[in-house]
């Protein structure tokens, strides 16, 4: 039984990677039936040698341009990690290893199988938004490893929701939260610290209401439930131009590598500095798509939630003005989930516009003195000042 795993990866300066993957368990076929890549200019020494080539016929497939080169030449040392099965680890082992798609030496793709992904997803915690109805339409809250965009007209509560999430992510694990820290990137100056303090107090009072015996437990290393601690665990960046915004997001990767306990990154609002006059709109699109790619990468790599707050603008389509989210259609592909906040009369509603797994739905919510909460039964908005 021959298992032939052939792949040639050419990661050139252009960043393209052609990958051909052939997995066969069959008697060796004559070489001409093997897949050949077009000849590239690179020397065969640069190209990684393919993996275990058991068949002797592989030796005859020695052609300078073919991807299945002979087994005679030892692989260059730096490519060793691309080899599956090593030298003579046994064909059966090679088969098993290739089918078992764990990441590692055997699996340079780092691919996960769907079963692992499902179990991981189910154990993933969500960040509660403070309002039960809103959590309901979001499937439990804001998901980690995903980019969520929240947009709405001014005054509907985007910043309030952002601040609420920055506080709620810090709810300790024993009370059902994530116990993580937050990064808040503020481009507009709406982050009022006294409001954050108020929301932190509201969150703590709700926790103590739900878990009335908690303060009797001796806090052995638990975080003390003080608003000051909640404030101190937010990393706040204030940026004043689009260049600073790009620099902050570039710096974020390094920052997150040092601070592993950050579980949410909130950018309020991601569009403010990009709505000025850009002489070159293509540049703006390029910069924005690079930004969104970086954010998606950060979300996945560090297992945190990225929340982008967006503004609305009026778009002139079909002879009338309509409200849409800012930055255009190309930006709308950059997020995994999208929530739109709007007014319905005097009530605030949230509408889940885009989600990979949940149906579109809308739910009411309210902004009270304690933060974002469910709409109470009495409609008179009594605010605690």
């Amino acid at each position, binding site marked *: 039984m021959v298992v032939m795993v052939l792949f040639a990866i050419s990661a050139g300066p252009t960043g393209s990677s052609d990958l051909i993957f052939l997995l066969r368990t069959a008697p060796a076929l004559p070489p001409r039936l093997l897949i050949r890549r077009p000849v590239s200019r690179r020397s065969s020494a640069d190209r990684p040698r393919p993996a275990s080539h058991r068949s002797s016929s592989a030796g005859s497939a020695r052609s300078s341009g073919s991807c299945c080169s002979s087994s005679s030449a030892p692989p260059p040392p730096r490519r060793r990690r691309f080899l599956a099965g090593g030298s003579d680890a046994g064909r059966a082992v090679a088969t098993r290893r290739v089918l078992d798609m764990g990441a590692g030496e055997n699996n340079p793709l780092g691919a996960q199988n769907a079963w692992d992904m499902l179990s991981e997803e189910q154990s993933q915690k969500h960040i509660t938004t403070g309002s039960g109805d809103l959590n309901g339409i979001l499937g439990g809250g804001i998901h980690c490893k995903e980019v969520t965009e929240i947009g709405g*007209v*001014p*005054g*509907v509560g985007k*910043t*309030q929701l952002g601040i609420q999430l920055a506080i709620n992510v810090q709810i300790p694990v024993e009370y059902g939260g994530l116990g993580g820290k937050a*990064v808040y990137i503020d481009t*507009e*100056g*709406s*982050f*009022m*610290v*006294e*409001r*954050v*303090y*108020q929301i932190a107090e509201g969150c703590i009072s709700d926790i103590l209401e739900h878990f009335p015996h908690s303060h009797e437990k001796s806090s052995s290393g638990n975080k003390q439930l003080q608003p*000051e601690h909640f*404030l*101190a665990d*937010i*990393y*706040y*960046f*204030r*940026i*004043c*131009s689009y*260049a*600073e915004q790009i*620099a*902050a997001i570039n*710096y974020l990767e*390094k*920052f997150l590598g040092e601070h592993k306990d950050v579980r949410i990154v909130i950018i309020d609002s991601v569009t*403010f*500095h990009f*709505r*000025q*006059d850009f002489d070159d709109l293509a540049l703006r699109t390029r910069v924005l798509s690079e930004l969104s790619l970086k954010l998606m990468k950060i979300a996945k790599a560090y297992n945190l939630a990225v929340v982008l707050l967006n*503004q*609305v*603008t*009026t778009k*002139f389509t079909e002879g009338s003005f309509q*409200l849409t989210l800012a930055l255009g259609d190309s930006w709308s592909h950059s997020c995994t989930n999208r929530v739109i906040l709007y*007014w*319905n*009369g*005097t009530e605030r509603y949230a509408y889940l516009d885009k989600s990979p797994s949940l149906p579109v739905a809308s739910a009411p919510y309210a902004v009270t*003195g304690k933060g974002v909460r469910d709409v109470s039964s009495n409609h008179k*908005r009594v*605010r*605690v*000042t």
Partner: protein
Amino acid sequence: MRPPAPKPPPPPASSSSSYSRREPRPENPLLLLPSCRAAKLSLGCPLLDRLLSGGLPAASVTEIAGESATGKTQLCLQLALLAPQSPLSASSLFLHSDLPFPLHRLRRLAPKSCPNILDHVLVAAAHSPAELLSLLARAQRLLSDPGRSPHRLPIRLILLDSIASLFRADFDASPADLRRRSALFFKISAKLKELAYRHQCVVVVTNQVVDVVERDAGNTVAWSSGRRVSPALGIAWANCVNTRLFLTRELDGDGAGGSARRRMRVAFAPHLPEQSCEFVIRRDGVFGIEPPQR
């Protein structure tokens, strides 16, 4: 002797306009808390201060929108005169686009006890968005290099009287012009916010209103003088301000020379609930009043 004014917190990044090549540094909101509470410009009336939870916040752009003769300019003049004697202890920069500058009203409002108070009000005129941007650039140089005029207090209050009148001319209603206008809003607002943040200034911008015909929902529409109005310059400008205060006027009875009840409403603010307060305009300024007991 006045107690020494609390020092403004040092600007976290470099105060020059060009972005420094250092890495961005995160701030700790806990450390910002005391300065955030202290740096508020009181309006001079305890009722209005209670509405605003202490006064106008620093490092933030507040918009005061209202019909004509609802007290916007009066409020701005009052703030300019209060600033040197408040805990903020600051001069003010008054940029006006409505001609002429109300000098007589300012003189009348100035307290007799302090004759030199007008030294602390700097006035400049801007007639178009481009002029305003160049004025702001000059203001930035002035703010970052205050050593030029040692007898004057540092500028920590910027007032812009009527952003709407800057955009009245030169812009049609075509989509291209509207886009150009929106881009200018964001440019101006970004500049104002940068000044506000780097030098911990209070920025106040006044705005006019337009009539609203269609059924608009939410907090942008109010009734004033018997008509539905909404702040001018649309949703694009609404995205550019942090706090919006709406001044409305309700005509009592027949309204002809009768008392007009004036109301200051918080349309939206990151740190304030939506509430309102009645006020009156008197010779010596704008003051809140308790609602009459029915």
